[in-house]
């Protein structure tokens, strides 16, 4: 029965692959008009009025995921709406904790209880209790554990960014060798997936919750910004369509590897890492095929243009 439930979750998770591939190829961020993260809805509304932000709600939430200032500070708490890149907004006074900060603390505390209780209100209640709060605090959140899971994903993404930032510094200081691209991608994806290990039993459940319609904008947004981060630190500087193909491909690699990991019982998930290695190799080779297709296209166009020029020259000479 458990196997069937897990399989069901995995099948739904498989849809995420299709969704992400589709989304990556469409105008992704523009069309995710308002990532309604239940956790932040009220806080965001408060912020928007505070800042007299001319931009509509959409872009204020949107910029939140694009908030990598050029001086590259590591993201601290990506889940809080961060209008900090537009100025004052949200300067909490020292002696007062916002509702949002409190919610973050509760959710972080709740993670400890996930292996036992799953991504549920029970886990949140236990977490609240360790902070000396009433178990009824779990009432602040939805019943399906959405916020808890999104909070966890966001935390993992932050940890990954910090790790990549640190590695980058080491390379810049000459303390470490710059990794070849395939190695870099493999290590980044592995590092991120390893963060799931303590929760792996309950992760299929989390995956299916992330696929619920009301969570998709938020979960997709977290996924795409994580993938964008990895490419950024990998040194991607594409300004053409490659920008999209690279991210779509890596998203595919990440998602398939994650699914494999759910069914992997080998020691230290060595099967998963081998799968990952093969997928990354495929991705590297894909680049070559794409180039060949492009050159054929260009050759065709040039042939047509040549024909047109010949005709027009013939015309002018008459």
């Amino acid at each position, binding site marked *: 029965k458990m196997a069937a439930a897990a399989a069901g979750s995995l099948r739904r998770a498989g849809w995420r692959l299709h969704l992400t591939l589709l989304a990556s190829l469409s105008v992704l961020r523009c069309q995710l008009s308002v990532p309604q993260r239940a956790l932040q809805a009220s806080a965001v509304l408060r912020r928007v009025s505070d800042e007299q932000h001319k931009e509509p709600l959409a872009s204020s939430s949107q*910029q939140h995921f*694009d908030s990598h*200032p050029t001086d590259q500070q590591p993201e601290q708490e990506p889940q809080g709406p961060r209008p900090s890149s537009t100025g004052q907004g949200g300067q909490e006074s020292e002696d007062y904790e916002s509702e949002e900060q409190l919610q973050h603390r509760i959710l972080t505390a709740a993670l400890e209880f996930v292996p036992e209780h799953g991504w549920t209100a029970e886990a949140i209640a236990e977490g609240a209790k360790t902070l000396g709060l009433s178990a009824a605090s779990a009432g602040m959140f939805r019943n399906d554990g959405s916020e808890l899971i999104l909070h966890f994903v966001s935390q993992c993404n932050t940890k990954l960014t910090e790790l990549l930032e640190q590695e980058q510094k080491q390379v810049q200081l000459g303390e470490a060798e710059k990794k070849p691209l395939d190695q870099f991608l493999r290590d980044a994806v592995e590092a991120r997936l390893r963060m799931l290990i303590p929760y792996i039993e309950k992760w299929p459940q989390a995956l299916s919750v992330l696929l619920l319609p009301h969570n998709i904008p938020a979960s997709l947004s977290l996924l795409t910004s994580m993938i964008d981060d990895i490419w*950024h630190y990998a040194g991607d500087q594409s*300004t053409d369509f490659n920008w999209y193909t690279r991210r779509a491909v890596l998203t595919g690699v990440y998602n398939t590897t994650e699914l494999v990991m759910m069914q992997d019982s080998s020691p230290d998930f060595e099967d998963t890492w081998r799968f990952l290695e093969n997928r990354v190799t495929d991705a590297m080779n894909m680049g070559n095929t794409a180039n060949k297709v492009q050159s054929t296209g260009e050759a065709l166009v040039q042939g047509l*243009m040549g024909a047109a020029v010949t005709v*027009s020259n013939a015309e002018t000479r008459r």
Partner: protein
Amino acid sequence: GGINKPVIERIIRVDHAGEYGANRIYAGQMAVLGRSSVGPVIQQMWNQEKDHLKKFNDLMVAYRVRPTVLLPFWNVAGFVLGAGSALLGRKGAMACTVAVEESISDHYNSQIRTLVEEDPEKYKELLQVF
């Protein structure tokens, strides 16, 4: 306060698309008129555009802005417009170029106004590019 990221991103993305398109227009014109007497003139104008495009490529990477998803479309559309106008003869090519440059100029001017209205100091660096 910090810079208004969504506005910057849109500006960079749109301008990059425009410069990219302009490059493709000149490429199309060169394909037709490259060997005529007006070829060198077009080539020179194209070289200037290549410079502009490079500037926006750099900005795009620095501000981590994604390029427009319509690039493949601009690739073809620009080239066809350039080639098409050139097939009308050199006057057609020049008319096309003038029209494109004028509209780019208007467009940049209004973007400059937007940035300056908000805060000239914050956007000094970007304004210098314009």
